[in-house]
Each structure stands twice: as structure tokens, then as C-alpha cells.
């Protein structure tokens, strides 16, 4: 039943992806009541997840495909090997 901080924060990370089991979540919550450090980690972990979601959006906007110059070069390379 008793978790170390290492184990508790691992479950906390898992739960950020919705992949912690119910039993794991119960153990985590008990741990957090008793451990301020992991409570802080848990709170900040949700903030970090928001940051990653924001970062993902920013990346998706940046990845815009190959430009025509790159395609021409690739075309040339492929035709040479044909």
C-alpha cells in the first residue's frame, strides 16, 4: 500500500496520459495527503501537461510540409537513380 515518492510520481505521470489504474490512483491520493512534496509535483504536473499541449499546437502550426525547391531537388535525385 505504501508508496515511495519515486513510485508515487511515476503513477502521477502515468495518470497524465489517462493510463493509471484505479488502484494506483487511490494509492497516489493517499500518498499525496501525507506528502507535500509529491502534492506539489502532482499540481505542477497538470500545469506541465498544459504546457505540452500548447507546445504541440505551436509545433503543428510550424510543420508546413516540403517547399517546391525541396521537391524539385528530390525529384532530380530520384530521376537520377531511375
Amino acid at each position, binding site marked *: 500500500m505504501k508508496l515511495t*515518492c*519515486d513510485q508515487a*510520481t511515476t503513477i502521477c505521470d502515468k495518470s497524465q496520459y489517462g493510463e493509471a489504474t484505479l488502484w494506483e490512483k487511490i494509492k497516489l491520493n493517499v500518498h499525496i495527503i501525507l506528502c507535500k512534496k509529491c502534492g506539489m509535483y502532482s499540481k505542477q504536473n497538470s*500545469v*506541465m501537461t498544459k504546457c505540452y499541449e500548447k*507546445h*504541440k499546437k505551436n*509545433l503543428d502550426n510550424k510543420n508546413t510540409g516540403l517547399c517546391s525547391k525541396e521537391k524539385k531537388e*528530390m525529384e532530380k535525385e530520384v530521376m537520377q537513380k531511375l
Partner: protein
Amino acid sequence: MEQKKHTLSPNKWVALHSDYLFNYTISRVNNHEIAKDLVQETFFAGLKAMENFQGKASERTWLISILKRKIIDYYRKINSAKGKAEVKMNFYSDGEKEGEWIEERVPNSWSNNIEKFIENEELSDVLDLCIGKLPEKYGMVFKMKTMQEFETEEICKELNITSSNLWVIIHRARTQLRKCMEDNWFKN
């Protein structure tokens, strides 16, 4: 009724398929140059393997199957090349305090105005920097799971790791990123 046989026209590959293959790749490797190279290698490999094409699948499906192998090879390569770099430990790994927080890695409280920090446009730059400081394998697994939203099972299969390996990697990556963002972004 006879089934229509698919044919290959490599002189049109770049025009017809390069965008599709590139988008497929960039969402998996997240680096423009690497994605471009993998697409080009796929075309080269396709040229070499043309005589094995049986016409059962469409040209694009066939190219994607080659590309998938190329991406897995790429993952394997960086997986073995830099797997030895260490992450900073956040918890004591043995002794009386095993599993407890190492003092200087304990989370500190952050500013109250978190929303403002998240909406700030420079967030991505700082995060990129922090992710870049992770050992390559950790960064890759973290990005596959978090940014590219691969299923756990899929990552384990592609990288040949167990799911508990995966969660240890994710856990270490996230604790390290938390600390890096605390030092560089959420400082009180």
C-alpha cells in the same frame, strides 16, 4: 471478375506522394531535415525494390510500408547510439532514503499567474531547449507519447521496450523537464 492491378510510376512519385509521406514522417520524427531524408530514402528503396511490387496494394500504400521500416530503423539507430547518456536522478536510488526526493530536486512553488506563463509565445522555445537537454532516447519516447500521441503499445513495439520501461523513461523525462522549466520559466 478480374481485379485491377496497380502499377508503379516512379517518375511521378515526388509530385504525387512526397507531401503525404512527408506529413506522415514529420509527425513521427518531428524534425524537418530528418523527415525529408527519410522520404527520399524511401523513394530510393522503392526504386530498388520495384520488381518485388506485385500490384496488390496501391502505389502509395506500398511506399508507406517501406517508409514505416525506414522510420523504425531510424528509431532503432538513435535508440542504440545515445541510450547510454544519463538523466539526472530525482530520487535516491538506494540506501535508507531509497525512493525519496533528493533535496535539491524537490519541487518549489511557482508563481500564481500560471496562465500567463502558458500563453506566452516563448514557452515553446524554452520547452524545446529543455527537451533538447534530455538524452536522445528519453526525448524521443517522451515526444512520441506526449506530442505525437502514439499508443503505449505502439511505442513499445517499435522500440522494443516493455511498458514499465516506457513509464520509467516518461517519468524521468517529465521530472527532469519539470525541474528545467522551474529553473528557466516558472521561477518565482
